[in-house]
Structures are given as structure tokens and as C-alpha cells.
């Protein structure tokens, strides 16, 4: 949910709550004021009747006395305060059950104490006003919410603009990029704090990343020369007179060194690929490349007695750098041969949308999902360094192709699904 929607929703609840209370207050106040106004009117009527009594003349026919009952009280006693009585009763003139207000005042005229009780029926808001009041409040509510929704869009767009700019900046930011993260300054303090924090954090991350990248590249490169030197010395040593035992030791050293070299090479390649920026729209004739690679590996396959079946239609163009595509195919083909059994089979099938490479062989011992990780081997017995598939995966990802692997009924199946090219090959 968008931030301003949450605000709007919260505001709607608050408004509803406040308006409801307001409605209750207004309703109560209105009811009270109607009664009060009636009492006021009755007090006035009582004054008029009291005036008539004081005058001593007979006003019994006067309309003012129609609703006033005059009662003579026995003892004058102390002056009594007026009393108000409100109750529901049947009103004959209105033919309805209504609220009737009675006001009784007391006065003494020429030694005689009188009680004047006037009454009036009150039409309460409960009946007619209520619906009207509800409507007024409902419309107010609707109008307010509509206004809030519209304004919150406009205002939040304006206020959150720097925030959204920051979000886009984060989205576009890549650790490997040379420039700093793109952030706009704003008048809002919180956003500026956030931006400052982000800028600081990304700069540090970039610096660390750069350092790490340089370190791994340099380390791999710097290792090559000493290894080369050691290998050269070993080779010179091999040419001298040595016992068989010494030769065996030398071989072991040489093999280990070889292994070190391969690991180092692969890691350098992988590091290189992590920071390789692919050039879009470079297409390579994949059909040709697959056939050529197959030919290169044909003798290796033959020695293992493998039979290769291939379905490679000509002219399949795939988005790739040629050298990288070659590395990828080499890894896939050498895997297909290495993880095969004697007199096994390899199936190569190329279509315009995918390359499927299947080979017979033993089931992998590691979980299938982990095989694309580094130093994960499907078969621990084989003398491989277990980094080939990581390289394959990285190269595929560079160009948006998808690589998948599964194993079923004695067949390893690697499928490389080509990404649909953004633009047609020209």
C-alpha cells in the first residue's frame, strides 16, 4: 500500500470518529436547546399570567391563560423556586405521545400564594432532525475524504518527490559503477538525513567492493608468476638424473601445482566475468560454434567410446560474445564427457530457442540445485575443480539466458534457454 493511502486511511478513521462525536454533541445540544427555549417561552407566559393576577382584574378568558393552570396555595410560606417537569405523555391536541414541558412558578398576590403551571409540547429532534443531521454529517464526511484523497495525491507527490528520487537512485545503483549514487537534496530534514546516510553507505560499499575486486584480481595475477617460476624449476629438475621415487614426488608436486593453476585461472575468469559488462546486440552463429566445439571434443569422446548424436540446424543466432560462448560450450562439453560412462551417449540438440545437452552417467551425489555453486561437485571421485558450472551460469546470466540442469533415469540434462533478443538480429 502506498504511503499516502495509509495516511488517507488513517485520516478517514480519525475523521469518522471525530464526526461521530461531533454528531452526538450536536444532537444532545440541539435537544437541550429546544427544551431550554420552550422553558424560556413558558417563563414568559407565566410572567404574563402573573401580571394579570397582580392587576386584580378577571383575565380568565384571555388566551394567555389557556395553557396555564392557576392554583391557590394554602400557606404563603417562604418563596419557592420554580420547578421544571419534563415527561412524555399523551397530548390530546396533537393526538400523539409527545414530550411535554411543565414550568411551575410561584408568586404571592395580596397575601394569597399562587402556583402557575404552564405546559407546552416539544417536538424533539429525535424524529425529524435526526435524519437531516445524519445526512449533513455524512455528506461532510464524504466531502472531506474526497478532498483528502485528492490532496494527499497532490501533496504527497510533491512532498515525497525527493524520496521517490532517492528510491530510483537506489534502484539504479550498482556496486560496480564508477560514479556515486544519484540523490537529489530536499527541504525535508528526514530525507536529507536518509540521503546523507545512503551516500555515505554506498560510497563505503563501493570503496570496499573496489578494494576487494582489485585485491582478488591482483592476487590471482600475482600468483601466476611465482607458480610459473616453480613449474619451470620443476620441469628443469625433471630433466636431470633422478630416482624413480624422486620423480614420483616431483610428479605429485607438479600435479598439485597444475591444480592450483587451474583453480586460479577459473577464479580469475569468474572474477573477470563478475565485472564484465556485456555489449548488447552482439550475435554469434551458435550453430557453427556448437558444431566446431563438438569437433574439438570429438577425439576425447571417441577415446571414451562415447557416441554423439547431434541435431544442429544451421543459422541459429544467439546473443553472446563469441569468446564467452566458447568458454561456456567448452565447459558444457567437457562436463558431458567427463561425467559420462564408458561407451555412453551424448545428445546435442539445438533449436532457435534452446540448447539441450544430454549425456549418460552416474547420478550426481550433491543436490542438483547446488551444482551451479562454486566448488560443488556432482561426483567427488572425479578430479575436477568444480567451478565450471559456476562459470557457465555466470556467462548465461550476463546475456539473460537461463541455464537449468536435471538428472533423470541415467541421463544428465543441461538446458540453456536463450533469452528472447530485445531487438531482432540485423
Amino acid at each position, binding site marked *: 500500500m502506498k504511503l499516502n493511502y495509509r495516511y488517507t486511511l488513517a485520516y478517514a478513521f480519525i475523521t469518522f470518529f471525530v464526526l461521530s462525536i461531533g454528531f452526538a454533541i450536536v444532537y444532545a445540544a440541539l435537544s437541550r436547546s429546544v427544551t431550554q427555549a420552550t422553558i424560556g417561552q413558558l417563563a414568559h407566559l407565566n410572567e404574563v399570567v402573573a401580571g394579570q393576577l397582580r392587576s386584580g382584574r378577571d383575565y380568565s378568558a384571555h388566551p394567555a391563560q389557556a395553557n396555564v393552570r392557576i392554583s391557590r396555595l394554602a400557606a404563603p410560606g417562604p418563596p419557592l423556586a420554580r420547578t421544571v417537569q419534563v415527561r412524555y405523555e399523551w397530548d390530546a391536541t396533537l393526538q400523539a405521545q409527545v414530550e411535554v414541558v411543565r414550568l411551575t412558578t410561584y408568586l404571592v398576590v395580596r397575601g394569597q400564594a399562587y402556583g402557575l403551571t404552564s405546559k407546552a409540547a416539544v417536538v424533539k429532534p429525535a424524529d425529524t432532525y435526526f435524519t437531516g443531521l445524519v445526512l449533513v454529517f455524512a455528506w461532510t464526511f464524504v466531502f472531506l475524504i474526497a478532498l483528502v484523497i485528492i490532496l494527499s495525491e497532490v501533496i504527497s507527490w510533491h512532498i515525497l518527490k525527493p524520496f521517490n528520487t532517492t528510491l530510483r537512485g537506489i534502484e539504479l545503483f550498482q556496486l560496480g559503477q564508477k560514479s556515486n549514487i544519484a540523490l537529489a537534496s530536499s527541504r525535508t530534514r528526514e530525507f536529507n538525513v536518509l540521503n546523507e546516510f545512503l551516500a555515505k553507505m554506498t560510497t563505503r560499499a563501493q570503496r570496499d567492493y573496489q578494494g576487494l575486486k582489485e585485491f582478488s584480481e591482483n592476487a590471482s595475477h600475482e600468483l601466476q*608468476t611465482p607458480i*610459473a617460476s616453480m613449474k619451470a624449476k620443476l*620441469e628443469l629438475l625433471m630433466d636431470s638424473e633422478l630416482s624413480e621415487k624422486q620423480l614420483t614426488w616431483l610428479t605429485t608436486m607438479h600435479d598439485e601445482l*597444475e591444480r592450483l593453476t587451474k583453480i586460479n585461472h577459473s577464479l*580469475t575468469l569468474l572474477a573477470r566475468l563478475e565485472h564484465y559488462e556485456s555489449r548488447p546486440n552482439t550475435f554469434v552463429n551458435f550453430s557453427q560454434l556448437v558444431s566446431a566445439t563438438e569437433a574439438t571434443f570429438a577425439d576425447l569422446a571417441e577415446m571414451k567410446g562415447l557416441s554423439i548424436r547431434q541435431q544442429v540446424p544451421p543459422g541459429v543466432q544467439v546473443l553472446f560474445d563469441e569468446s564467452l560462448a566458447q568458454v561456456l560450450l567448452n565447459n558444457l562439453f567437457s562436463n558431458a564427457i567427463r561425467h559420462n560412462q564408458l561407451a555412453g551417449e551424448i545428445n546435442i540438440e539445438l533449436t532457435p530457442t534452446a540448447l539441450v545437452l544430454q549425456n549418460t552417467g552416474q547420478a550426481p551425489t550433491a543436490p542438483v540445485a547446488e551444482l551451479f555453486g562454486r566448488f560443488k561437485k556432482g561426483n567427488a571421485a572425479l578430479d575436477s575443480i568444480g567451478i565450471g558450472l559456476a562459470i557457465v551460469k555466470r556467462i548465461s546470466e550476463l546475456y539473460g539466458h537461463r541455464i537449468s540442469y536435471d538428472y533423470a533415469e541415467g541421463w544428465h540434462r543441461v538446458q540453456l534457454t536463450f533469452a528472447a533478443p530485445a531487438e531482432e538480429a540485423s
Partner: protein
Amino acid sequence: MKILLVEDHSELAKSIVSYFVQEHYICEVATTFAKAREKLELFKYDVVLLDIMLPDGNGIDLLKLARQDKVESSIIIISAHNALDFKLTGLSEGADDYITKPFPLPELHARIKAIMRRRSPQQTNLLTYKDITANLESMECRINGKLLPLTRKETSLLLYLINNKGRMLTRQAIAAHLWGDYTDNLDSVDFVYQHVKNLRKKITDAGGQNYISTVYGLGYKFDAADA
């Protein structure tokens, strides 16, 4: 043959030099960019082996300068950068070949020989060892005039053996030569065994001697010692 080795790692340089001394090549060493520049201006070399990372400069710059000055030497880059780097960045432009560290010394030797042959067409295209004759253009190998039915890999294996005769050749070095960068397969060394076996058989079938001796557990020697 005269070789200039531009390499700042002195131990590696020493090993390379001692290897080539056995081949009766003259091999001079320059450990810095400046020294290499000076030597290239003063003397003439057949081959320059060029490291890229030098303490006072970049080998690529030296390569460009040499090409500008019309230095006629063949230039082979020896670098810690791997082959893909060269392909992706065009680092090797102007060089005759490049070889990635660490490399087997016989491989370097084979590359130098191949380049020298390419650059001097007046030289014979025939490589001869005793009764074996290899035509480097048509890639045909004969024993006493009789054509050997070799595959492409076997031919290049035979040439590699002849070029490095008398040397201890490890299976890894042979595998690297035959399959190059194609394979990071460590088990490809087993295939070397197969190739050597086939080659031996074809040579003896054609009436030749078995010149390839196995050094137990290590590799092979194309034996010139008991000639």
C-alpha cells in the same frame, strides 16, 4: 637464435634462460621496461618474450613502441592474464602469439619454433628426425618415405615431441599443447596416454622405432639420448 626475455621475476627468467641455453639459443634478459627498450634499440633479436606487468611500465606499451619502430622481432606475450582477457580486450594486438602463465617450458619452446618457421618462409618446411620426416605445410608425416596414417592430434603430438626431443615432457604439458585453452579438464591427461599409445603403434606398424619412452608416472621423452 637470439631471444630477448623481458620478465621482472628473476627466478622465472633464470629458469627460462637455462632451458633455452640447453637448446643452444642465446637468451638475454631485461627486467625492466627501460632496459628492454634500450636493448631493443641497440640489438636485433629473433624473438622477444614479453611480460605485460613490468615494474616501470606496461609490456603492451613496449609492444606498440616496438611495432612503431619497425622492430622485426617476433613478439610473444607471456602474461598472467588469461586467454579470455586477451580476446575480450584485444590486448594481444600486434603480438605474434601469447602464452598464459604458468606455462610448460616445452610449450613456450614449441610456440617459438612455430613462429620462427612462419616468419622465415625460405626455411624448409620439413622437420626431420632420423627416419621420420614431417611436412609442416601439408601436415604429413612419413617414415622412410612411407606415409603415417595419423590424425590431426597425433600429428601435432609427434611434432611437439620432435621439437622437444630429449626433454622430459609431462602429460599436463602435452595436454595443454594438444587441447590448449579448450580444456580445464584435469582428466584430459588420461587422453594423452591414449594418443601416445596410438602414435607409438602407428610408428612401429610403419616399421619405425619406438622413440617415445615413458617416464614412469610423469610423462614422456622423445629420446635423442641414445641416438
